[in-house]
C-alpha cells in the first residue's frame, strides 16, 4: 500500500490547464522531492492534495483511502499535514499558542468554550515538547512576530509535526533562508521519524537534492521526469528545463 496515490489529476483555471493528468505514487516512509520552475503547478498540486482546491478530475488516495471528496479539515485528522510557502502563522500569539492551536485541531477539546486553554497542562506540555524538538523551547512565550524568519519557518514545520502526521507536505521549506538556517532545517527534517512520509516541493534543485531518494520533475502542470536522484539529474529534459533551453 502506498502512503499517497494520485491518479489522473486534472485542474484548469479559467480554461488554463495548471495540472495536466498528473499521476503520483509515494510509498510509506518515502522522502519525495517534487521540483520544477515557478508556475509548474507544484503548489496547486499540494492545494489539491490537502483539499483547499477541488480537482476537475482524478482521484487521491491516502493510505489506500479515497479522500478526493473529503473536506479539508477532515484530511488532517487522517494524518495529512502541510506547511506553507508563505508564512501563515498567527503573528500576535506566542510560539506556544501557535503550536497549541495545531494540537488543538485534533483534540475534541477545541469545541470547549468553558475552560481557559492556558490551564490545560497536557496541551502545553505536548507543545513544549514539539518546540524542544525544533530547538525553540527557549522562545516558547515570545510572540511570533518578534522572532526571525528562520525561526518562523521552523515553527511552520513544528506545527505540522505536532499533529504526529503520517504524511507531511512541505512547501519550499528552505525558501529565503540563510545557509546556516538551511542547515538547521535540514537537520530538523532528518530527525523526522522514518515511518513518516515526506513530500517536499522546491524550485531550486541544489538545496533539497540530497534529501530525497526519489524525485519528480514538474513542468507546465505535467510530470516530466520521475526517478532516482541520479536518473533525474542526468535526464536531458531536466537539463532542458533547468539550464534554460
Amino acid at each position, binding site marked *: 500500500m502506498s502512503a499517497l496515490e494520485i491518479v489522473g489529476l486534472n485542474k484548469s483555471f479559467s480554461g488554463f490547464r495548471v495540472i495536466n493528468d498528473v499521476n503520483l505514487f509515494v510509498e510509506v516512509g518515502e522522502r519525495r522531492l517534487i521540483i520544477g520552475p515557478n508556475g509548474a503547478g507544484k503548489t496547486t498540486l499540494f492545494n489539491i492534495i*490537502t483539499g*483547499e482546491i477541488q480537482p476537475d478530475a482524478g482521484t487521491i488516495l491516502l493510505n489506500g483511502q479515497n479522500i478526493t471528496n473529503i*473536506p*479539508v*479539515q*477532515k*484530511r*488532517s*485528522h487522517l494524518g495529512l*499535514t*502541510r506547511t*506553507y510557502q508563505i508564512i*501563515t*502563522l*498567527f*503573528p*500576535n500569539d506566542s510560539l506556544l*499558542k501557535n503550536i*497549541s*492551536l*495545531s494540537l*488543538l*485541531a*485534533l*483534540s475534541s*477539546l*477545541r*469545541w*470547549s*468554550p*468553558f*475552560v*481557559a*486553554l*492556558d490551564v*490545560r497542562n497536557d496541551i502545553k506540555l505536548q507543545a513544549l515538547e514539539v518546540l524542544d524538538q525544533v530547538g525553540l523551547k527557549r522562545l516558547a512565550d515570545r510572540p511570533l512576530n518578534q522572532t526571525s524568519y528562520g525561526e518562523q519557518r521552523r515553527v511552520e514545520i513544528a*506545527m505540522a509535526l505536532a*499533529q504526529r502526521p503520517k504524511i507531511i507536505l512541505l512547501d519550499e521549506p528552505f525558501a529565503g533562508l540563510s545557509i546556516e538556517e538551511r542547515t538547521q532545517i535540514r537537520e530538523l527534517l532528518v530527525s523526522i521519524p522514518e515511518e513518516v512520509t515526506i513530500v517536499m516541493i522546491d524550485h531550486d534543485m541544489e538545496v533539497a537534492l540530497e534529501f530525497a531518494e526519489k524525485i519528480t520533475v514538474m513542468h507546465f502542470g505535467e510530470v516530466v521526469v520521475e526517478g532516482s536522484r541520479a536518473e533525474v539529474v542526468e535526464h536531458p529534459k531536466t537539463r532542458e528545463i533547468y539550464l534554460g533551453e
Partner: protein
Amino acid sequence: MRERCLIIVTLMSLVSLPLWMGSDYYINIASQILIWAIFALALNVLVGWSGLVSLGHAGLFGMACYTGAWLLEAGWGHFTAVLGAFAMTILVSAIFGALSLRTRGIGFIMITLAISQILWGIAYRWIGLTNGDNGIIISARPTPFGIEMDTPGVFYIFTLIVFLLTMLIMAIFYQSPFGVSLRGTRDQSRRMSALGFNVWLIRFFAILFSGFFSGVAGLLFLYYHQYVSPHVLSLLNSAEVLLMVISGGTGTLLGPVVGAGLVVVIKNVASAYIERWNMLLGVIFVAIVIFMPEGLVPGTQRLFRWVFSRIKSIGAAIKSEAS
C-alpha cells in the same frame, strides 16, 4: 494585591451605585449602559474575535424583544417567555448564520443588513402579530425569587448581575480553546482548515453564541422599557451597536463597554445640554479614527504606555545627569 483591591473597589462602587447616585434618572442611565454593553459585547464576538462585521445585529436583538413580548402578551409566564425568546433568537441566529456565512467582508455586512431589514419590514407590516409601529406594551417586569423589580435600583442590580455574568462568560470564552480557535479563523482561516478545524462550523457557533447574548440584551431592553416597537430592529440600532464596538476597541473586553457608555451618554445625557448632539457624536467618531484608530481602550493603553516610557527615559536621564 493592588489589582485585587482595584477590582474590588470597582465592583463595590458598581454594586453600591444606587446608594450613592441619588437620582433615579442616573441609575436608569447606568442600567441602559449595561444593557447596551451586553449587546455590544455580543456583537464583539463577531466583529472583534471572528472578523465578521455584522450590520444587522438589531435583528437578533429585536427578535428576542418581540418573542418575549408576544409570549407575555399571550399570557405565558416570564419563565416561558424568556426561554421562548432565547429559543427564537438562537433559531434566527442559525438562519442568520446559514445565510450570511456564504460570504465574507463587505458581502457579510450586506447580507446581515438585508436580513435585519427584512425582519424590520415584517415587524412593520405584519400588524396582526406585531401591532405595527404602535408596538407592544408589556405590563410587568418579572419577579425572580419574589423580588419586585419596579424600582430603578433593583432593576439596575439585576442588570448588573447579568452584565457581570456576561463579562465573566466572555472572559472565559476568550481564553477557552474554542475562543482561541475562533480568533485563529479570524487571522488565518485557510490555515485553520488545513490544520483540521471546521472553520464554517466554528463561525456558525460563534454567531449562535453572539446571538444568544444579543437575546439577553434584547430581553433586558424589553423589561427595561416594557415596550417594543419596530424601531428596535432598525438599521440605526444595528449601526449604533457596531459603532459602540468599533469606537471602544474591537476584540477587547472593555472596549465595547466603554463604547456603549459613550454612545448612551451622548445620546441620552449630553443631548440635554447640547442641541447638536448628533454632530458631537459624529465628531467624536471621526476623532477616534484620527487619534486612536484601534479604538478608545487600546488607544488609551497605547497613550499611557508611551507617556510612561517617556517619563521613564526622562527619569533615567535625570539620574545619569545626577551621577
